[in-house]
């Protein structure tokens, strides 16, 4: 008789912990062929609220770290992901019903994307910052700073898509509450385990699984969220509703991008969209 395996309980990832939904709800996640994979925690608005609190608490420390240090941490996520690549390949194949080669290419790309973004941490300021030659005796410097807490509706790609939207936000010092793909949420939680063991401070990335249309409006209207990335919102009406709600505190909004090619090299704008430009003036005198 074969061994009965020990299954994993997929929970949420909030503030560095893995709590169940406070609502006590879960939902069934099937594989590509419709067989049960697991029950995922179905996050509620209160879980979203807790996640924002965790993200806000983490923001000061994370944005205050040196860019070099953030680079090291994001690079560390890539290292740990590389070490667990078989697990992710298996999960992707199960969830999406894709070939081993394809699963491998996604994991490769996700690791490489993390490494790519890690390197940006201490360069983005140099590329988008400016010394401004004002017409007067003033030192004048513009530098980017993270916007704060960013809510993200992740796209379908359960690993590469998720990494591609989260990594650019955290390398620049933002903290994130991400709603994982509704259809393929499990990999996001496994990625949470990777982040939890990669020196990433608790609360920098918070992962919610559940219904996009249920949770996203609470994040969009949350007055302590500074920006919202609607990349994974496929329902145009919902996207508009979320953008309207986001206006309540003038969140920075990134509109949906359903047909993004996640294998292509990203530009800078996933980073710059959630960066503020701070310009400091000082007189030059003796």
């Amino acid at each position, binding site marked *: 008789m074969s061994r009965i395996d020990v299954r994993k309980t997929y929970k949420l990832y909030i503030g560095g912990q893995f709590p169940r939904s406070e609502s006590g709800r879960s939902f069934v996640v099937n594989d590509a062929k419709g067989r049960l994979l697991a029950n995922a925690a179905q996050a509620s608005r209160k879980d979203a609220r807790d996640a924002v609190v965790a993200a806000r608490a983490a923001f000061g420390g994370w944005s205050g770290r040196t860019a070099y240090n953030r680079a090291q941490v994001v690079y560390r996520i890539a290292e740990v992901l590389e070490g667990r690549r078989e697990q992710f390949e298996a999960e992707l194949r199960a969830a999406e019903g894709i070939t081993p080669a394809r699963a491998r290419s996604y994991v490769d790309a996700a690791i490489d994307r993390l490494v790519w973004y890690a390197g940006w941490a201490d360069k983005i300021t140099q590329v988008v910052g400016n010394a401004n030659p004002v017409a*007067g*005796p003033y030192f004048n410097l513009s530098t980017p700073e993270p916007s704060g807490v960013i809510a993200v509706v992740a796209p379908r790609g359960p690993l590469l898509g998720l990494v591609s939207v989260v990594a650019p936000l955290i390398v620049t010092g933002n903290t994130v509450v991400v709603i994982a793909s509704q259809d393929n949420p499990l990999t996001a939680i496994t990625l949470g385990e990777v982040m939890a063991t990669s020196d990433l401070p608790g609360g920098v990335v918070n992962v919610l699984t559940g219904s996009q249309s249920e949770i996203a409006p609470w994040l969009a209207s949350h007055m302590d969220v500074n920006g919202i990335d609607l990349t994974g919102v496929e329902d145009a009406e919902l996207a508009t509703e979320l953008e309207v709600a986001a206006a309540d505190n003038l969140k920075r909004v990134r509109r949906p991008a359903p047909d993004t090619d996640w294998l292509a090299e990203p530009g800078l704008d996933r980073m710059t969209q959630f960066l503020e430009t701070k310009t400091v003036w000082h*007189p030059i005198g*003796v």
Partner: protein
Amino acid sequence: MTPTASSTASSTSSHAVFDDVVRSDSSLRRFLHGLPGVDQVGCEARAAGLATRSIKTTSKAYAIDLAIRMVDLTTLEGQDTHGKVRALASKAMRPDPADPTCPATAAVCVYPDMVATAKQTLGDSGVNVAAVATAFPSGRAAMDIKLADTRDAVEAGADEIDMVIDRGAFLSGRYLDVFEEIAQVREACGDAHLKVIFETGELQTYDNVRRASWLAMMAGGHFIKTSTGKVQPAATLPVTLIMLEAVRDFREQTGQMVGVKPAGGIKTTKDAIKYLVMVNEICGDDWLDPDWFRFGASTLLNDLLMQRTKMTTGRYSGPDYFTLD
């Protein structure tokens, strides 16, 4: 109106309220470096802002006469002669011989060896004689020579002494030496009034100008003065602004008024009016008086006279109509 007549400055050479401050070099240093700093750009912007004030008609006529009354008509040349000083003194008393309503200047300013000549010409006209003493302009002489220089001038009849501070001592941080030097010269002045020249062009920073101002005021100077006229830059609006703020704040703290004299580089009526606007806005009316504000100048007077004539005749005048002395 002579400074002696209406001055409220204390008769002692320093102020008791600052006894603790001037007890040692280090306490004096702590005090001077504890004064609020000056931001160069902000200070210059403020001075430039005041310089945009537009003064017209009656205000301008008043300002011109006031400026004439504030002039210390100056000649400080190696080539000075008794004749030259006599001519200058005559002009100080009657700047515009064609117009008896034109006021006299406050003083003539000369080297000590010319004091007697100047005094002789000026008599009891009310125009004072100011003498530059203390090894003017460098101040590089032994203390007893500086004191002798001062006494000499006072004995020859000088009403006012314009001394220079030891910038070397100041810049190397020997503030107490500078303080004591000023205090001793003040002693030597007797009844004559003491103007303390900083040579702000050598002090370089506004922070230094502010510190020198307080140092001189605490040591009993009646006036603080920007420059000798021998070093560039001489008087500037922002330097004078700092000194005006200092005398304003000093009165706030001690109740004592100290005068301010920008000297050198003020050549036009337009310039002079800018200074008066600044006095008005920083210190107020009380300082708009020859007892408390002077211009150290020579060519300025003729421009004031030309503008004065323009105000009364309504047409522009020319230099040929005013005496060159």
